C-alpha cells in the first residue's frame, strides 16, 4: 500500500498562489465597503491634551473619525494575557511576580510608544482616509522617555504605567542543583554580558482586517491576516459582548506570520466593532510604515551570565540574570522569557543552574514571540559560552561541546525544571554526539582547519562556527480536526490551526490519505476558519504538524473505524474481515467484494437506508481533539563557514549546514523549505536586522531601507542532513520544525566570525554583526595586540 507520508507530494496551495488567484485579506472586495486609516502617535511618551477632529470629520468622503472616547462602554479593554500563554500550573510551580498591564484599544489620555493607535478615520477609500489623517490635530504634551532596559529598572526611573509601581512587569527564578557549590568547585569562572537586539518578523504581507456585519441574522464575519482566528473570535466575543456562535473569523491566504500575527491586536477588535456600528463593511490594511511601528517586535534580551567550569571544559554551573525589554506593554505573560530560561542550557548537561528573568517596560513597541520565541536568544548565550570556554582553555569548541552533551544513555533526560506548559521538562530522545559528528562531517571540519591555516597565511580570514539547539515544539493545549466524507466520496478535512505558508493543505492531506488508503488528491484540507469546527488554537510555536497533524490523524482513524463498521453492515461481515484501500472497503479474502467510500458515505446518511449500526450516530464525519501530554523536543546543529573581509568588516557566508531531528518527516521538501527559510531569517538576525530607537523613543528603522531583510545575495543554500528520532508523545512521532532554522544562525555565524578572527581573540556578544561593529572589534583587538607587543 503506497504511503504518502514521507513523500515529496507537490503542494496543493501552489496553483492559486502562482496564478494570482490566491485571496489575501487586502484582495477581498465587498460592496459599500469603507476603508480605515489610523493616526498613530509620533511621540514615544506624551500626554494627549486635546484632539480636534472637526476638520477631519468634515472632509469630503469621510464617514467618521473615531477616538478612544467613542469606544468607552462599547468595547472592553484587552484582557490581561493572551490565552494559553500562562498555564496556571506553571504559575503554581515557579510563583513568579507578574503584573497585568493590558494595552488600551486606542490611546486614551496618553501614548506610551511611537506607533500607538490614537484615532481611526473611515472614508470612501484609503487615499481619502489618509487625507483626513493629516487634518486631525492632536495636542501632545511630551513626557520624559525611557528606552534603555537598565535605565528603566533604576529606582528613580520614570514609571511608564504608574499603577504598576515600577517598570518591572514580571520577575521569576528557576533553580536546579547547588549553584554556589558548583562555583566553589570550579577551576575557572567566566562572566560576560550577551545581547540579542530587538528585531521584527516582518512578513511580506502586512496585517489587515475586514469586517462585515449582517443585521438580519446578527452574523459578524471577520477576515484577518492572523495566525490565530479562534483567538480573535474569542476576544471579539468577550470584548464587544457578542454571542461567540455569531462570529466567524477567517484567516484567508496569509502572507507570512512568523509570530507577530499570533497576537490579537486592537485593530482586530475595533474594525469589526465599527462595521457593526456603521452597518457598513470596513477594511483596514496596514501599510509598511505602520507595520514597522506598530506590529509587535521581538527578542531584545540582555543576559549577564556567569559560568563555572573545569580544566577539561566540563561546565558545572551556570548563573544568569537577564532582562527582556518588552516595550510599553506585555500581553504574553512569561512566554518568551520563560522559553529562554527553560532552553538556555540547551542540549548540555549542566546540573547546577540558576536563572533570573525580568520583563521590563520601556517606551517602545510591545514585543511578542517571533520565530524561535526566546530560544535564539538563549542559544546565542549558550553557544557563545561554549566558544568562550574553548578559547579560555585553548580547546576545540567541538570538544567542549561533546564533553557537555546530554548522552544518549541519559535519555529520557530529566532537566529538573518545568516546561512552559507546566509539565516536567524531559528531553525524550536523540543522539547529540552523532548529530554533531554528522554536521561536522558534511562541513569537512578536519580539512577545513588545514585550509584555514593556509588561507590565513594569504591574509584570507575564513572561519567555522557551530551552534546547537533543542526546542520544545508542538505545545498544547490542544488542536482539533474534523474529517468527513461527502456523498461523492471526497474527503474533507477542517483543522483549527491556521497556516501562512506551512503547507497544511498538502501535509495534512498526506496524513489523512494514508489512513484512508487514498490519494491525497481525494482529500481537501481547509483551515483558518472558525466555522470549520468548534475549537481551535492556531499555527505558531512549531506546533502545526505535531498538533494539527495528530488531530487529523486521530479524526481520520475514528472515521475510518466507523466506515469499516458501516461497510461490515453493508457487506454482512465482521470488520475484522475488511480492509480499506484505494477508496474502497473490501473483503480481505476476496477483494472483488467491496463497497466504495462513496457508497459508505451514502449509507451513513440518516434515514431508512441508513446502514450505520444501531447505537452509533449516523453521518460520515468525525471530530478529534489532540491534547499533547507535553511538548516534544526537536533538536539540531547549524554550522556556518564564513569569510571575513578584515579590511571592511564585511562577513560573507561561504557554506551553511544544518543537521536536525524533527521526528517523522511528512514531506521532505516542505521540511527542508522550512529550514532554509528559517535560516534566512536567522542570517538576518545575525548580520543585518535590528530595530533601532533613538534616545527619545523615535523608531529610526522605519523602512526597508534601514531595516535590512536579507536578499538572495545574502542567503546561501543550506546543506542539510537529517536525524529521525520519533517522538513518543504523539501517534506519528512528529516533532515541530517551523522555528528550528531560525534559532541557531546568530550563534553559529558569530562563532564562525570569532573563529575566523581567532588570532585576535575577538568576542562578538551583541548582534547584528554589522561591518562597522566588526571593524571596531578588529581595530580594538589589533591595538591591544600592538600594545602587548
Amino acid at each position, binding site marked *: 500500500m503506497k504511503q504518502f507520508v514521507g513523500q515529496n507530494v507537490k503542494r496543493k496551495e501552489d496553483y492559486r498562489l502562482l496564478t494570482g488567484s490566491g485571496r489575501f485579506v487586502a484582495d477581498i472586495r465587498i460592496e459599500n465597503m469603507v476603508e480605515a486609516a489610523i493616526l498613530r502617535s509620533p511621540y514615544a511618551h506624551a500626554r494627549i491634551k486635546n484632539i480636534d477632529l472637526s476638520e477631519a470629520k468634515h472632509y469630503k468622503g469621510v464617514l467618521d473619525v473615531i477616538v478612544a472616547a467613542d469606544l468607552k462602554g462599547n468595547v472592553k479593554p484587552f484582557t490581561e494575557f493572551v490565552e494559553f500563554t500562562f498555564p496556571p500550573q506553571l504559575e503554581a510551580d515557579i510563583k513568579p511576580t507578574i503584573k497585568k498591564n493590558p494595552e488600551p484599544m486606542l490611546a486614551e489620555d496618553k501614548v506610551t510608544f511611537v506607533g500607538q493607535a490614537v484615532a481611526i478615520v473611515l472614508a470612501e477609500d484609503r487615499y481619502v482616509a489618509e487625507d483626513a489623517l493629516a487634518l486631525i490635530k492632536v495636542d501632545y504634551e511630551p513626557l520624559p522617555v525611557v528606552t534603555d532596559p537598565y535605565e528603566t529598572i533604576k529606582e528613580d526611573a520614570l514609571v511608564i504605567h504608574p499603577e504598576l509601581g515600577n517598570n518591572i512587569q514580571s520577575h521569576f527564578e528557576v533553580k536546579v542543583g547547588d549553584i554556589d557549590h558548583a562555583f566553589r568547585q570550579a577551576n575557572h569562572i567566566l562572566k560576560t554580558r550577551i545581547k540579542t537586539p530587538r528585531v521584527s518578523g516582518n512578513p511580506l504581507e502586512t496585517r489587515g482586517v475586514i469586517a462585515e456585519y449582517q443585521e438580519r441574522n446578527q452574523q459578524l464575519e471577520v477576515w484577518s491576516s492572523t495566525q490565530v482566528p479562534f483567538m480573535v473570535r474569542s476576544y471579539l466575543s468577550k470584548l464587544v459582548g457578542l454571542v461567540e456562535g455569531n462570529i466567524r473569523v477567517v484567516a484567508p491566504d496569509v502572507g507570512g506570520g512568523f509570530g507577530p500575527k499570533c497576537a490579537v491586536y486592537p485593530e482586530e477588535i475595533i474594525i469589526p466593532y465599527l462595521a457593526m456600528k456603521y452597518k457598513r463593511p470596513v477594511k483596514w490594511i496596514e501599510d509598511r*510604515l505602520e507595520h514597522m511601528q506598530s506590529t509587535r517586535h521581538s527578542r531584545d534580551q540582555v543576559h549577564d551570565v556567569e559560568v563555572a567550569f573545569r580544566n577539561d571544559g566540563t561546565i558545572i554551573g551556570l548563573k544568569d540574570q537577564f532582562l527582556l525589554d518588552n516595550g510599553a506593554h506585555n500581553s504574553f505573560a512569561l512566554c518568551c522569557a520563560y522559553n529562554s530560561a527553560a532552553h538556555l542550557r540547551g542540549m548540555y548537561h549542566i546540573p547546577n543552574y540558576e536563572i533570573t528573568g525580568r520583563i521590563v517596560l520601556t517606551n517602545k513597541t510591545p514585543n511578542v514571540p517571533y520565530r524561535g520565541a526566546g530560544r535564539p536568544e538563549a542559544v546565542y548565550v549558550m553557544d557563545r559560552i561554549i566558544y568562550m570556554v574553548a578559547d579560555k582553555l585553548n580547546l576545540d569548541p567541538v570538544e567542549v561541546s561533546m564533553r557537555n552533551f546530554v548522552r544518549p544513555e541519559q535519555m529520557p533526560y530529566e532537566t529538573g525544571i518545568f516546561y512552559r506548559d507546566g509539565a516536567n521538562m524531559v528531553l525524550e530522545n536523540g543522539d547529540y554526539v552523532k548529530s554533531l559528528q554528522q554536521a561536522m562531517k558534511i562541513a569537512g571540519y578536519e580539512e577545513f582547519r588545514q585550509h584555514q591555516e593556509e588561507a590565513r597565511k594569504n591574509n584570507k580570514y575564513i572561519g567555522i562556527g557551530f551552534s546547537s539547539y533543542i526546542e520544545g515544539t508542538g505545545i498544547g493545549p490542544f488542536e482539533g480536526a474534523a474529517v468527513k466524507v461527502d456523498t461523492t466520496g471526497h474527503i474533507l478535512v477542517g483543522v483549527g490551526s491556521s497556516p501562512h505558508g506551512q503547507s497544511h493543505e498538502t501535509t495534512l492531506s498526506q496524513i489523512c490519505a494514508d489512513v484512508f488508503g487514498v490519494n491525497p488528491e481525494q482529500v481537501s484540507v481547509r483551515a483558518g476558519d472558525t466555522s470549520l469546527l468548534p475549537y481551535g488554537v492556531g499555527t505558531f510555536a512549531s506546533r502545526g504538524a505535531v498538533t494539527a497533524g495528530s488531530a487529523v490523524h486521530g479524526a481520520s482513524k475514528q472515521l475510518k473505524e466507523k466506515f469499516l463498521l458501516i461497510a461490515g453492515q453493508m457487506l454482512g461481515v465482521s470488520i475484522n474481515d475488511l480492509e480499506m484501500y484505494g477508496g474502497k472497503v473490501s473483503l480481505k479474502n476476496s477483494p472483488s467484494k467491496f463497497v466504495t467510500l462513496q457508497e459508505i458515505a451514502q449509507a451513513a446518511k440518516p434515514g431508512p437506508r441508513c446502514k450505520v449500526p444501531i447505537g452509533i450516530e449516523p453521518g460520515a464525519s468525525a471530530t478529534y481533539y489532540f491534547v499533547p501530554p507535553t511538548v516534544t523536543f526537536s533538536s539540531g546543529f547549524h554550522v556556518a563557514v564564513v569569510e571575513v573581509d578584515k579590511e571592511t568588516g564585511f562577513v560573507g557566508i561561504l557554506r551553511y549546514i544544518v543537521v536536525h531531528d524533527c521526528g517523522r518527516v511528512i514531506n521532505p521538501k516542505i521540511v527542508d523549505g522550512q529550514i532554509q527559510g528559517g535560516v534566512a531569517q536567522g542570517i538576518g538576525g545575525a548580520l543585518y536586522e535590528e530595530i533601532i530607537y533613538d534616545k527619545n523613543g523615535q523608531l529610526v528603522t522605519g523602512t526597508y*531601507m*534601514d531595516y535590512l531583510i536579507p536578499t538572495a545575495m545574502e542567503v546561501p543554500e543550506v546543506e542539510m542532513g537529517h536525524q529521525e528520532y520519533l517522538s513518543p508523545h504523539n501517534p506519528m512521532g512528529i516533532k515541530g520544525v517551523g522555528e528550528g532554522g531560525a534559532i541557531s544562525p546568530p550563534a553559529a555565524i558569530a562563532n564562525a566570525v570569532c573563529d575566523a578572527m581567532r588570532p585576535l581573540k575577538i568576542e562578538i556578544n551583541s548582534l547584528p554583526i554589522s561591518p562597522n561593529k566588526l571593524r571596531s572589534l578588529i581595530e580594538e583587538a589589533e591595538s591591544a595586540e600592538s600594545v602587548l607587543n
Partner: protein
Amino acid sequence: MNLEGEAKFSMEVNQLWDSLLDEEILKKVIPGCHELILNENGEYDVVLKLGVAAVKGEYVGKVKIEGVDKPNYYILHASGSGSPGHVVAKMHCRLFEMEGGSRLEWNCDAEIGGTIASVGNRVLGGVAKFLAGKFFKDIQKAVKSASLETPIDSAIKID
C-alpha cells in the same frame, strides 16, 4: 541629535547680539520662515515652509528666548510640527569678542520625531547641518557687514 558649531562675524559682539535677536533679520534667515509673530507670552509663533529637495512641509511652532545674559549668552527654544514630523530644539548660544569681530559658539540638542525621523535616518544629520550653516551664513548676509573669509559651516559637528 546634537549639533554644535562655531560662526565668526565681522561685526562687534553687541551688533551680533542685536542681529541674532532682531525679528526682521530672524525672519529673513530662519530657513523657510514664513511668519514670525511675538505673542503675549513673550514667545514667537512661527510658520515655516521648509523644503529640502522634494521633502517639503509646513511647520507650525514656537520660538522662545531664555537665560538672557546680554551680550554673552542666551538659550533658544524652538519647537514645531508639521506633516513630515516634529522637532524640539534647545540651542545654547555663547557670544565672544574677537579680533576683527565676534564669534558665536552654539550647541543644539534637537529631538526629531514622526515620519521623517523613522524614514530619514540617512540624510537627516546632513540636512540639519546644511540648514544650520545656511542660517549663520544668511545672518552674515542679512547684516550686510564686510565679508569674513572664515568658512563657517565647516565648523559644525553632529553626534
